[in-house]
């Protein structure tokens, strides 16, 4: 349990650094560390497959692309758009509402009682594959179609003006 609290502390700590870092590239590097602590959380829950997939997909691919983009656009302090006070106030109110919703949602979960899994090996590849392709086949396939449509949409947006060019 003490390991969990330590890793959870690191997750929160690095997440705060993500939003307080002045340099966007440093911010992304903290985000990478945050995702690394998530991988450790998954390992602590014995979800090895999820842990390693989080590691490969989020840390190894998505955040590399984030870093790639930020390195290219080279955000400077001069070119950074200044937000008006109205936007800031609206942001604070929206954030506070979100916090209230999250607190309320976690409170109804009754997390004070530790949840004991019936099958501790649930997160291993074999069990996960069987569950995904039997019990949750339809949601799994629908989410894959959703991802495909997002990908096709992105390609369509990127090649919008091939006829004129």
């Amino acid at each position: 349990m003490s390991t969990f609290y330590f890793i959870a502390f690191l997750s929160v700590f690095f997440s705060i650094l993500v939003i307080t870092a002045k340099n966007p590239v440093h911010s992304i590097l903290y985000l990478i560390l945050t995702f690394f602590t998530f991988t450790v959380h998954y390992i602590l829950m014995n979800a090895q497959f999820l842990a390693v997939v989080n590691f490969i997909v989020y840390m190894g691919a998505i955040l590399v692309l984030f870093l790639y983009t930020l390195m290219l656009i080279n955000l400077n302090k001069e070119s950074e758009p200044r937000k008006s006070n109205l936007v800031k106030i609206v942001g604070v109110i929206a954030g506070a509402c979100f916090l209230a919703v999250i607190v309320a949602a976690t409170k109804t979960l009754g997390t004070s009682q530790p949840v004991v899994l019936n099958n501790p090996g649930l997160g291993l590849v074999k069990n996960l594959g069987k569950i995904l392709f039997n019990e949750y086949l339809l949601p799994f396939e629908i989410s894959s179609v959703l991802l495909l449509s997002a990908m096709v949409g992105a390609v369509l947006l990127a090649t919008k003006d091939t006829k004129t060019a």
Partner: protein
Amino acid sequence: MEVADIVIKFVLIVIIFAISLVVAMYSTYAERKIAAFFQDRIGPNRAGPWGILQPLADGGKMFLKEEIIPTNASPFLFIAGPSLAILTACIGSAVIPWGQTITIGTHVVPLQVTDINVGILYIFGVVSLGVYGVMIGGWASNNKYSLLGAIRAASQNISYEISMGLSIIALLMVTGTLSLKEIAEQQHGWHWNVLYQPVGFILFIVCAFAETNRTPFDLPECETELVGGYHTEYSSMKLGFYLFAEYINMFISSAVMATLYWGGYNYPGMDWVLAHTGPTIAPLLGVAVMFTKVFLFIFFFMWVRWTIPRFRYDQLMDLGWKILIPLAIANIIATGIWITFIK
């Protein structure tokens, strides 16, 4: 776990780590000798007999050179880049099975540091993490050439990871497991996976060349366009770490290819050897076979480097996205048909 087991694991880790470093060190020597052979030269021959101490001399030189951190570089990330590169290169060897279990006295020792049941994915994760060392170092240098090298490295690694992953999926359909130990055991004798997955192997080795930034895919450090690429600003041992990480990566990827496709420590007639020499000598022979395969792959890496010129950047992207990925998907479909109807 007993104390003896912990000690054995510790010794095994130290041995594997030392072997990786020594192999990487002498790969630099081998590369220069092989280059000399291909170009009809003599190669390094001053330090020791046949120049055999050249890697030590190079290492000493790297340590003693002046360490320069550019004024406008970000100092922490400038040091973190090469450290991360060498770290990710070294941790990949943890899941590779170097041999069968070996019996020493009464102890049965597995010649693998750890057998996690997502072994291939672990290797894959380490490989995808490796690009951060190059990217952070290239960005922190605050130099346009370094930045361009880092950006090339990132886009190249991301592109070739996709076809590498797809070529592994076809292999996993044949083996049915993600554990490298079980994959090695399945290839007992001569049942090597390359016989069932020849296209997959070719895809994998091309991607391995791209992931280790070796010629013909060494555009991140293309000296005709980018001076030194991502390590333009680096000097002393930090440059040494980048160069060294490349050779360790080459060693680890050779070991992964040998394990996944070329039978690892298995060789025809291994049962006969086991029956005649006992459970201590036979696994050691298996380790020797494994290392022979690894060294052949390392030689192949060098052979290609001194034979084939570098790609142009658009050719690199075309090869990755328009040839390798469709080929890998076709390979998956063909493997599926083969498993369903023939096997």
